């Protein structure tokens, strides 16, 4: 079910990453207000775990003793390159492994969707020790291969190509920060291995129409040269799709909605320049056709200087 999770998990991941960079223009992921300086490359390795026992079948919250706890292990590589100080290119490669603690269903594993993001900061204004900046992030996520999408919730993903655009505004005053962002995710149709399926009606085709989705996020917390610590609230809303019927299996084009809250921290070591550690924790507090997941993730990052000169801003 709730593989549902996956896009979510992925977003999770995205929150992470690293990067470092004195003060304001720190790190970077698809959803944060941090940038990698020009000619610097941040490489990060992360490991995470997500699990749920309860899930929402439509709006009906239940357990399923035929699956027990459904968990996902995630290992992820991320790269962020500073093309310019205000223009970054981010790539991530996630490997997922699913497992059900009870019942007979086999777990699945494999490299899921490759993510490519261009992050651009077109605007920045300072006043005293306050700073306001705006970001635009364009993304494309592409399944690395034709993994099995028809065995949710054990499948590792939904198999859809996703084009996204995100607008993000960030305000910083001293060491206090607050940012708001919204994204629109255009999702391509997917092809399943069967020639017919039932959503809320019968469809005689292998192609499945995937509804688009929207993501909204607010985060706020502390940010200085070495430490970033933020609380996050995140909402993913599928714009269409249908509910899982009572006692039916989940399906790729379900209306998967979730609201999560979490904490995220990044710490850049003082002694070893360029080395950072990351961690986050999220809980799904409300959802529809998704698992009520608890997830956490941890990792390290290192920043390499690839240019002859680095223009620190």
């Amino acid at each position, binding site marked *: 079910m709730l593989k549902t999770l996956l896009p979510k998990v992925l977003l999770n991941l995205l929150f992470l990453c690293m990067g470092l960079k004195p003060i304001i223009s720190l790190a970077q992921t698809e959803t944060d207000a941090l940038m990698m300086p020009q000619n610097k490359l941040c490489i990060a390795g992360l490991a995470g775990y997500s699990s749920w026992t309860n899930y929402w079948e439509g709006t009906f919250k239940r357990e399923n003793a035929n699956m027990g706890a459904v968990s996902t292990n995630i290992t992820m590589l991320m790269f962020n390159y500073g093309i310019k100080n205000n223009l970054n290119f981010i790539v991530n490669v996630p490997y997922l492994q699913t497992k059900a603690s009870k019942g007979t269903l086999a777990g699945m594993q494999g490299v899921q969707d490759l993510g490519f993001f*261009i992050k*651009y900061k077109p605007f920045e204004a300072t006043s005293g020790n306050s700073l306001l900046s705006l970001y635009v992030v364009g993304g494309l996520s592409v399944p690395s291969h034709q993994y099995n999408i028809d*065995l949710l919730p054990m499948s590792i993903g939904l198999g859809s190509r996703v084009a996204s655009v995100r607008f993000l505004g960030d305000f910083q005053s001293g060491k206090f920060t607050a940012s708001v962002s919204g994204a629109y995710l255009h999702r391509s149709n997917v092809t399943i291995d069967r020639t017919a399926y*039932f959503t809320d*009606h019968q469809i*005689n085709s292998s192609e499945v129409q995937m509804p688009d989705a929207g993501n909204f996020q607010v985060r706020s917390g502390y940010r200085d040269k070495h430490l970033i610590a933020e609380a996050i609230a995140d909402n993913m809303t599928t714009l269409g799709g249908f509910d899982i019927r009572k*006692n*039916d299996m989940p399906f790729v084009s379900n209306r998967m909605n979730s609201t999560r809250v979490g904490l995220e921290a990044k710490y850049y070591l003082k002694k070893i320049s360029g080395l950072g550690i990351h961690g986050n924790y999220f809980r799904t507090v409300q959802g529809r056709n998704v698992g009520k997941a608890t997830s956490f993730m941890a990792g390290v990052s290192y920043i390499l200087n690839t240019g002859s000169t680095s223009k620190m801003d």
Partner: protein
Amino acid sequence: MKKIFTPLIAFACLCSLISCNKEIEEDNEHYEALQPNQLDADAGTWKTFIVALPSDFPVPAPASPTSAAYQTELNELKSVTANLTDKQKNIINYWKVGSVLRWNEIMRKLVAKHNLPPYQNADGTYPVPSAANPFSYPVFPFSNPPYAARAYSYVSAAQYDALVVAYHYKKQYNRAAPYKVDTNIKPLVAQNDLPAYPSEDAVVSGATLELLKLLFPADIEYIRSKAEEEKNFRLWSGANVKSDLVAGDSLGRWVARKVIARAKTDGMGTAGGNQAIWTKLETDCRERGETPWLSLESPKRPPMLPLYGNVKPMLFSSATVVSLRPGPPPATNSPKMRQELNEVLSYTKNPTRDNMKIVNFWADGAGTYTPPGHWNAIATQEFVKHKYSEVRWARNYALLNAALMDAAIVCWNTKYYYFNARPCQLDPAIKTLTGVPNFPAYTSGHSTFSGAAATILGYLLPAKAHEFTAMAQEASLSRLYGGIHYRADCEAGIETGNKIGQYAINRAKTDGAE
């Protein structure tokens, strides 16, 4: 601002890269309007499945085309056909592809809609859908594969029998279609020389409506609206006058009552069994020294329709069911069983994506139209190329679905006779790539269905026989690849299915249609 527009334009490009048009074209969207290659005008003599003689249904003689009553009907028809709305035209375009075909699609949809096992009660028991109270949860029916096989079969047999009787009266009364009587009427369906009274569409819609009311009572409003739509389509398209439709509709319902009378006494009503029967199956198996089947669901669900194997078959007697039952599966503790378990384990441990595709393609599990529905879909894709008359469409589906229903009966009889365990019950290391069905393993239902279907379809469409055999083989092995069946289940299933298909062939050879 230009700085903001650049990424927006880039996003638009990305969008077009992954294609923004999400409309899906369904496989059945471009079927051509039905224009039979041959009329089968003598089909009134073909052998019926359930009803005895056409003369048991005395259809009254129609008014002559020269009568005032008929002329009034013709005038009505002209005014109805003169000003069609777009909605009416869409309905015409939908139904003109073929009555029997469209109802087969509708049935598959109803089966998929209702093929969900009930959710448990708070105390860990399961509620049973009730035909007497079809609307409240769990909605009636749970159209699992045996239920579906029987439903497809009765509807197909009723349509076929009703059409045979209708063709008998078509020939006897020989009243031409309105567009033949008055050439000012330009029908929106293909013209042919088949007598129009009683209307074949109305016969099919009347018979189907009655059967589906019995089989899918919770959808009565939808079913009724489709039946009404179909009769209107014949009027709006100028294909039939009202009296063609009234006679057809009434004949169809009349025939349906005979089929329903059989359905109500075929043994399905008690096929679910009760606690005493479920316990006895278990103890009997233990006494034979074998490990009995256990529900792998949690909470444990009673076995699916344990007495379905006693339901009255379509193509042979209940005694034949017993004679078709294959010999026993490998004993639980035999080296042969260990070998079979090892094979299942090897397929599920590191499954290839190609095998997963096969598992998914043939899974036909909860929420789908079931394996019998899948074979109906496969048959439809081929039948539609052959431009059959309505009565031949009905005959071919009736043969296919009689074989599928009897396959379900023989298979269920076998499953509960041996009551043997699923692979993952005997070896918990086996994890499955699809849901484990809630009934014993031997023999494989998919294999029995597929063997039966491929055999009769290969006879009806000899050019495709090899292809159907290969598909049946793949369907059968998909259950081994998925980790829910042993090879012995699959092989015995296919072999028995082939034998059942042969009964359908024998019938086809003597039903007068060839």
